[in-house]
């Protein structure tokens, strides 16, 4: 027995540190899930192939971890060397043994009662670097925990939660820094992306997503409207280690549905930002929806892809935007290469040759309610897409629904919602969803599998030829990644508002997903 414990310890010590190099080469250790999207390219793809289209019918729940919180479980678990790190509402972290599902330690964060979030006290996961675990909190702190004990190493205030700032995104560990985005796009905050020294918590840089007077872009905001310009950054971006550039999406301008008070393009709302990882300096930006009046946050996950585009090898970004268009950009310079709708939209006539949408003339929310597609929740939303190198396909969980958009008053009060209107679902038209497989450089539909409701769960593709997804009615399911044929499903009993992952435990492939208020882990019989 002593020998066994000694061996286990030796393995732990040998693999103790989650170095930058390990994350950078995450594809070489598919047994772990080291960062939010699986790798820096944000493919959410597992090279594990034990679970296949032939044997997935034998997939069974192995254990369930119940979360003692009422809010949605949006977490993406990270797994390293036999331990799974999971966040729980509001901003707690628990380390679970992947063999048994039993907790090793918990970090319980007491948050003030008056935190302000538009959409629930949620958290989407941690980042790992060295021997630390990083978590953002709903009261806008960034905290580093000891990976062995869960004890606090440092705790910094990122912003004032009383003005509607909060952290719900998983941080991204890059080199010796931890990068984090801020939520609060419905509260008229001034958004930013921050980086902190991983060891000390000292702020390394901040990129403001709304310029001030004297800076480029200020001319895109009428009067003082930039002061409440929002452009929050509430979803984890991706990173290109060769270019040393972080790619991060930004959210809607504030107020959401009343653009009268903020004439102009409203930079850098609804953008993809390319930031120097060392300095936070802006390399380029691409704005998907200038002067947005439909709450079309571009806080989706940017997928990095190296491939042939019209005959030449290019470094690309694939981006399924909430505005229902699919984009292919050059990630070296931000140049628009291609775009087309992947879900129904009625707000724009087309994209022009620079990728700028040509809106239907005069289209904006009204006091009576304007009907457009997509619904304010978008053609997709924050949950993750996936790219499979095995199939060379881009997978997205698409939402097919419309909404009624209302324009209203926009009186800014610090800490109060600053929406300038409201929305309703279309009466009698609940819409539907679909898992769609797109050819990556053209966005052409290769196959789709329809879902009863517009989904709130991301997808994972695997080398076993599978795409895993989840739906509002609680099913966690697997489709054939080549054809979209449904192969397996399990009823979790709770709405799925999260992203799947895969990893090895005791040399066996596992798949995990948060559903309802629990983490479910599956393995073959």
């Amino acid at each position, binding site marked *: 027995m002593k020998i066994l414990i000694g061996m286990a310890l030796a393995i732990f010590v040998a693999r103790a540190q989650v170095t930058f190099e390990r994350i950078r080469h995450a594809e070489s250790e598919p047994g772990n899930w080291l960062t939010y999207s699986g790798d820096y390219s944000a493919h959410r793809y597992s090279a594990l192939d034990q679970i296949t289209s032939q044997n997935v019918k034998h997939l069974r729940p192995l254990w369930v971890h119940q979360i003692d919180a009422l809010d949605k479980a949006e977490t993406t678990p990270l797994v390293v060397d036999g331990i799974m790190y999971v966040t729980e509402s509001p901003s707690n972290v628990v380390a679970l043994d992947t063999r048994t599902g039993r907790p090793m330690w918990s970090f319980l964060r007491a948050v003030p009662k008056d935190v302000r979030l538009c*959409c629930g006290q949620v958290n989407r996961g941690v980042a790992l670097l060295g021997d630390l675990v990083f978590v953002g909190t709903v009261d806008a702190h960034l905290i580093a925990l000891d990976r062995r004990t869960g004890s606090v190493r440092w705790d910094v205030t990122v912003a004032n939660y009383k003005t509607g700032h909060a952290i719900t995104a998983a941080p991204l560990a890059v080199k010796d820094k931890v990068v984090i985005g801020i939520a609060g796009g419905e509260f008229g905050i001034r958004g930013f992306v921050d980086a902190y020294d991983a060891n000390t918590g000292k702020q390394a840089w901040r990129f403001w997503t709304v310029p001030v007077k004297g800076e480029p872009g200020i001319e895109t905001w009428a009067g003082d409207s930039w002061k409440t310009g929002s452009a929050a950054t509430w979803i984890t971006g991706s990173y290109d280690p060769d270019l040393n550039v972080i790619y991060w999406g930004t959210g809607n301008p504030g107020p959401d549905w009343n653009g009268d008070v903020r004439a102009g393009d409203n930079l850098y709302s609804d953008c993809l930002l390319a930031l120097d990882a060392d300095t936070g300096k802006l390399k380029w930006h691409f704005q998907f929806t200038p002067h947005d009046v439909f709450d079309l946050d571009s806080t989706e996950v940017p997928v990095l892809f190296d491939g042939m585009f019209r005959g030449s090898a290019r470094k690309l970004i694939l981006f399924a935007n909430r505005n229902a268009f699919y984009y292919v950009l050059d990630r070296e310079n931000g140049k628009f290469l291609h775009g087309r709708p992947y879900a129904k939209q009625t707000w724009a006539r087309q994209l022009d040759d620079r990728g700028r949408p040509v809106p239907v003339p005069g289209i904006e929310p009204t006091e009576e309610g304007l009907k457009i597609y997509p619904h304010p929740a978008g053609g997709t939303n924050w949950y993750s897409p996936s790219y499979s190198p095995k199939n060379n396909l881009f997978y997205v969980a698409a939402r097919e629904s419309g909404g009624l958009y209302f324009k*209203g008053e926009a009186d800014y009060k610090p800490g109060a919602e600053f929406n300038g209107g*409201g929305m309703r679902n279309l009466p*009698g038209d609940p819409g539907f969803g679909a898992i769609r497989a797109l050819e990556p450089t053209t966005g052409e539909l290769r196959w789709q599998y329809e879902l009863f409701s517009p989904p709130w769960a991301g997808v994972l593709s695997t080398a076993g030829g599978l795409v895993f997804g989840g739906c509002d009615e609680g099913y966690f399911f697997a489709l054939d990644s080549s054809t979209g044929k449904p192969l397996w499903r399990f009823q979790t009993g709770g709405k799925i508002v999260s992203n799947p992952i895969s990893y090895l435990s005791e040399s066996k492939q596992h798949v995990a997903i948060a559903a309802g208020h629990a983490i479910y882990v599956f393995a073959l019989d």
Partner: protein
Amino acid sequence: MPASPTLSFLPLLLPLWLFQAEPTSEIPKQNPHASAADVERGARLFRTNCGVCHGPAGNGGRGANLAQPSLRRASNDQALFLVIRQGIPGTEMPPGWWVLDDHEMWQVAAYVRSLGRVPPENVHGDAQAGERLFRTTGCIGCHQVALEGGNLGPSLTDIGSRRGVSYLRAVLLDPASSLPEDFLQVQAVTSDGKRITGIRLNEDTWSIQLRDLSGHLLSFWKDDLASLEKQPGRSPMPSYRGRLSDQELDHVVAYLVSLRGDR
């Protein structure tokens, strides 16, 4: 050492005290700010602060439909004020005191109450005669009143507090004219040819649950069905046009309007 330890702790205690639930005895039972001007101001505040979830007209969206005479979490003015002021823990309903003062919250409460007020209408019929017709013309076979009646249609125990005279009369004549948003009649045909008509209780990508016209609860995998027809805009309730005279309709409506629930 401070002369008075108690006093030195005051600044620390004060913020904590602010989070304590207020004694409800201090809060008026009835809304002190419910004039027409208050309702109007409340409507403006509502659209700015509440409309994003509850819909600009208060009839629901991500948040609950408030255009109802009785609200589950706010049976009286005081309770409604407290819900607005403190929010609902464990839900996305935030505390109103972040952004509104007490006066403004009462004005919002006045507006919310105005949404569910059923305008008084003249009732012409005789409720007792209506109850007899309700029992003899088939209504009670499908609708429950208090503890009696069928379960295919919705319970009518408190229908009088939710619906007005003209609405009820219109629905008796044309039952499909006002179906709830998620109401759907379906017809399923099983692989062995059995045809089942029922009301959809639930549905997902792979399965459907329904209550057939005899009240049986049924569940099917869609793959096991030969066909599944959705019949939006249809209701199993028959029209009473021509089956009841105008006067009899008045009686039934008078009876329904008299049903105000147990509370």
